[in-house]
């Protein structure tokens, strides 16, 4: 079935077409969200939300981009939105704890995230890398995840993030630079 046919069926509300779309894209959506939010339950929740959004707004899809590109765009937008909400909740909880007067919440180190798809021998290193990825700015993180985890080309990332090719190149360059710095600092600190 061609993409146009699939889109037409989806717009007609065909349940089989929707099921097919989910089967085809669920792992892509889930893994993108997982790379950004670094939590299996949250990533699955976001992936479900993405498909609900697709179901509800397929009528607005004009076909000016590939369906997969559009789905990736919804996924990264929802994942970043989730992270922003989580951060603001954390900030609110911290302020609340200051006014509560009992005790200030300790700044706890986030436990390492172990991606289920990493080979066993790389498990620890990958966990350190994911910890560093988490500290990248949102757009660098998105570009890095889409390229390294999802295997998207720079041109495909341009379409997903709606930026120019030079912007993607610059984002990837800065992401790698920042990761190198963060990892160097981490290993220097842990070797002492």
């Amino acid at each position: 079935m061609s993409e146009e046919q699939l889109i037409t069926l989806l717009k007609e509300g065909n349940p089989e077409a929707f099921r097919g779309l989910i089967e085809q894209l669920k792992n892509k959506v889930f893994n993108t969200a997982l790379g950004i939010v670094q939590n299996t339950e949250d990533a699955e929740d976001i992936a479900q939300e993405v498909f609900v959004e697709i179901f509800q707004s397929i009528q607005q899809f004009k076909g000016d981009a590939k369906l997969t590109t559009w789905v990736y765009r919804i996924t990264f937008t929802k994942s970043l939105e989730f992270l922003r909400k989580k951060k603001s909740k954390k900030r609110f909880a911290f302020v609340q704890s200051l006014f509560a007067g009992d005790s200030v919440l300790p700044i706890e180190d986030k436990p390492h995230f172990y991606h289920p798809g990493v080979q066993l021998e790389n498990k620890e290193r990958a966990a350190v890398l994911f910890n560093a990825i988490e500290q990248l700015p949102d757009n660098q993180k998105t570009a890095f995840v889409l390229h390294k985890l999802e295997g998207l080309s720079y041109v495909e990332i341009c379409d997903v993030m709606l930026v120019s090719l030079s912007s993607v190149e610059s984002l990837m360059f800065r992401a790698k630079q920042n990761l190198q710095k963060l990892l160097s600092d981490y290993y220097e600190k842990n070797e002492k």
Partner: protein
Amino acid sequence: MTTIKQKVEETIASIDGLQRAETNPYFYDKIMQRIKSAPARVVTMKPSMIWTAAACLVLLFGINLFTWIDYSKTTNYTNHTKTDATVNALVKDYFSTNNVLQF
């Protein structure tokens, strides 16, 4: 320093050949459940409907404007003289010496 640099490179390469993680086997059912329980969305208007509504508004406004201009052209002079006469009568009455209070 070389060791750290090497470690950094190895760490960055640790996600090469990463396997895709699998979703929950009930993933599809969960989505359908969410769709069923989701609140109804606000129905958006089709662009053609929006254009028709806009054209109706413009037409309505145009007719009103035309009527107002036409009406004001025909009644302008009479109204003006009427108003002038009223104002003059009021001025005359206001400045009349009979109305001045005598102390």
